[in-house]
């Protein structure tokens, strides 16, 4: 009996070791550049030059609390990898073709794991650029690592502190993100609330970094628009009861602003609607997902929120510069995932990867890895008028986000669907 047990343990270990039998898991040769022989006599059709592959390190929270954001991002990464394979990679300015590999890893929504994986990708895999970080915490943990190793990093999380040093208020040299912040969301909400004549609001936010940030943003932006937050409080994502609703009632506010992500935001929505059937409810951009309607049902009718254009791509006017891009992306995503609903997080991942690819395209052949990384960083800072799922991005050394809050659109839930609410219809 004992032998049987020992045997199975040995077998298990053997299987694991066998899986790791090969040396470093790099399917392609290291980053030395084998270019095709240069001095050849002129031939009618020049042989296509193939350079070394570029590696993008992609780290998302595929398990853990961030999974609902990280899994769509992972899907996008896999989809983009397939697209790149079909295209045969990218072509540099000197006509040399490079394969692009996207190495996808899970950070388990944990800081330490994110740090370990980032180090591994930088040191062992020799990635040129990192597209990493679904959540703010792990992103912040990877910031010092990318900075020290001088590797450009494009985060998919929203916290301002990721790209901007909170002490010096300067842009972090090596870190970028295409993700709008709660500040932009709050600015859009403020515009809306002001336009419809509301001066007193209650702000309920989930007790996470994201939620607290929505509250901090509201506190920063609302007063200047003449809006007073008469009552603000947090709730747990896993809560089933919402005693805060009593305080909302007692405060006499005219609207409730909810800073959260479904399903928590949906549950709060339901609780507020239950107690206050007539009050106006404004969500943050975290609720821009079909999950809101799915989880809140009728209670979500009439709620408004600022969203990325991707959510209502088909309702955008044809003149909108990112309409076609969004429609194409939504179609490609749904084909690839066999019908999964589109989410704004997928959009962020797509934007981040497009930035990385755009920067990689500027690399001439023959650079060392360190030079490649530095050049990508430079290229990122030079991205102008780049269309993305959330708007047109304009990066610069002083702005590693490049997003204008007016690229958000207000959206209202009608008949269980998201409907574009242009400014002239705000009332």
């Amino acid at each position, binding site marked *: 009996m004992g032998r049987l047990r020992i045997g199975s343990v040995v077998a298990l270990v053997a299987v694991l070791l066998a899986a790791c039998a090969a040396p470093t898991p790099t399917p392609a040769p290291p980053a030395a550049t084998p270019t095709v022989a240069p001095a050849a006599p002129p031939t009618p059709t020049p042989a296509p030059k193939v350079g070394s592959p570029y590696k993008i390190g992609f780290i998302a929270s595929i398990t853990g609390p961030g999974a609902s954001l990280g899994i769509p991002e992972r899907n996008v990464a896999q989809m983009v990898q397939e697209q790149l394979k079909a295209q045969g990679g990218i072509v540099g300015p000197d006509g040399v073709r490079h394969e692009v590999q996207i190495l996808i890893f899970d950070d388990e929504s944990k*800081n330490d794991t994110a*740090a370990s994986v980032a180090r591994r990708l930088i040191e062992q895999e020799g990635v040129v650029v990192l597209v990493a970080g679904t959540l703010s915490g792990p992103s912040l943990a990877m910031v010092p690592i990318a900075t020290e190793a001088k590797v450009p990093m494009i985060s998919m999380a929203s916290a301002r502190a990721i790209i901007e040093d909170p002490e010096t208020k300067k842009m972090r040299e090596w870190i970028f993100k295409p993700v709008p912040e709660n500040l932009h969301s709050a600015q859009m909400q403020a515009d809306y609330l002001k336009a419809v004549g509301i001066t007193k609001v209650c702000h309920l936010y989930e007790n996470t970094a994201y939620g607290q940030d929505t509250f901090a943003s509201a506190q920063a932006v609302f007063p200047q628009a003449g809006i007073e937050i008469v009552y603000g409080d947090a709730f747990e994502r896993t809560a089933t009861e919402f005693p805060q609703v009593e305080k909302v009632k007692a405060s006499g506010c005219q609207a409730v602003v909810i800073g959260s992500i479904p399903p928590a935001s949906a549950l709060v929505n339901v609780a507020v609607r239950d107690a206050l059937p007539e009050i106006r409810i404004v969500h943050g951009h975290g609720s821009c997902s079909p999950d809101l309607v799915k989880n809140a049902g009728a209670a979500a009718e009439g709620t408004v929120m600022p969203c990325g254009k991707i959510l209502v791509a088909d309702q955008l006017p044809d003149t909108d510069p990112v309409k076609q891009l969004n429609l194409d992306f939504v179609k490609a995503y749904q084909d690839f995932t066999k019908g999964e609903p589109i989410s704004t997080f997928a959009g962020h991942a797509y934007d981040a990867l497009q930035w990385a690819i755009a920067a990689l395209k500027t690399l001439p052949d023959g650079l060392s890895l360190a030079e490649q990384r530095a050049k990508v960083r430079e290229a990122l800072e030079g991205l102008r008028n780049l269309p993305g799922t959330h708007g047109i991005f304009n990066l610069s050394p002083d702005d590693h986000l490049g997003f204008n809050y007016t690229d958000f659109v207000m959206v209202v839930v009608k008949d269980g669907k998201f409907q574009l609410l242009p400014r002239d219809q705000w009332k």
Partner: protein
Amino acid sequence: MRSPWVGFVIGVPLILAIGLLEAWRPFDLSLSTLTGGFLTLDTMIRAGLFTIVLVGLNLLMGYAGQISLGQAAFYGMGAFFSAILTVRARALGIPPGLAEGWAWPWLVMFSGAFLVGLLAYGIGRPILRLRGHYLAMATLGLGVVVYILLRENLGLPHLNLTGGFDGLQGIPRLRLGSLTLWPAWRYYFLVWLFAFGAIALGLNVVRSRVGRALRAIHGSEMAAESVGVEVPHYKARIFALSAGMAALAGSLYAHFQTTVIPATFGFGPSLELVVMSAVGGMASIWGAPFGALTVLLVQEVLRTQLRRLIPGALGELELIAFGAILVLIMLFMPEGLIVWGLRRLRGRRMARGTIPAGR
């Protein structure tokens, strides 16, 4: 195999060798290239940090028989103490001349460990009157309370001491005079210096009067009291020691990652520590580094290699596989790897015909 100091004879040169390899990188080799991507310096540093915590935990759980499901809270207290007093030094009114000196973080680290130990002693006296599952729950509760306090900025949001959910960033690297203990291989040596120190301390305690008293307590508290062992005092002392060691490791962690967030120190991590302790061998000081390394390795291997067995599905399968491995190790090697390993070795000798000595 009689003397546990043999462990040092094998362990120290091994650790030194790895460190020197990483420092010089002959022929561009590193730990990870040699082990096929299995083992990285990062993992070794984290193993060293956990070793320090686990030695304390093993003393508490394995020898004194007191369960702690909140050890990560002490780890976190040490980490945040170091973080707050370096990153928020200005806000706290500490003169920059002092706060920016190379000795300041060291002072903070050791005083933090001492203070946490003191706090643990104070908490330990009442809490350790409980036994078994009750004690486990009380420590669990303590751990969660500390986590929530850290997460909620100690209830004083305007002071922003702990940075809320996002924690604190920008913790400085440790320095000795003008020598910065970075890049990673230098820090690795520092961490393992402390780790071996912790192991030596642990072995000393086990072999001392205190150790005998602890084992007596583990056997039967009433009996121990009847022979004059001041049970509550000893229990609280060992609790304090384990807390202090965890806090020290926490400070080292803070200077390693330069970022600390409360989520790293919740109930889940406390449970992970208990798992590491059990896997390595709770009643064994050398079980600490083995347990830490094994669990970290399993996680690393799963994360990087599982994708090659089953491409496509990531993350989810790693979770399942980790749980399965945990169950299997507990089923087949419940006393931990060290004891199991030693038994296998001794077993072979026994088979050759020597008369087995009583265990």
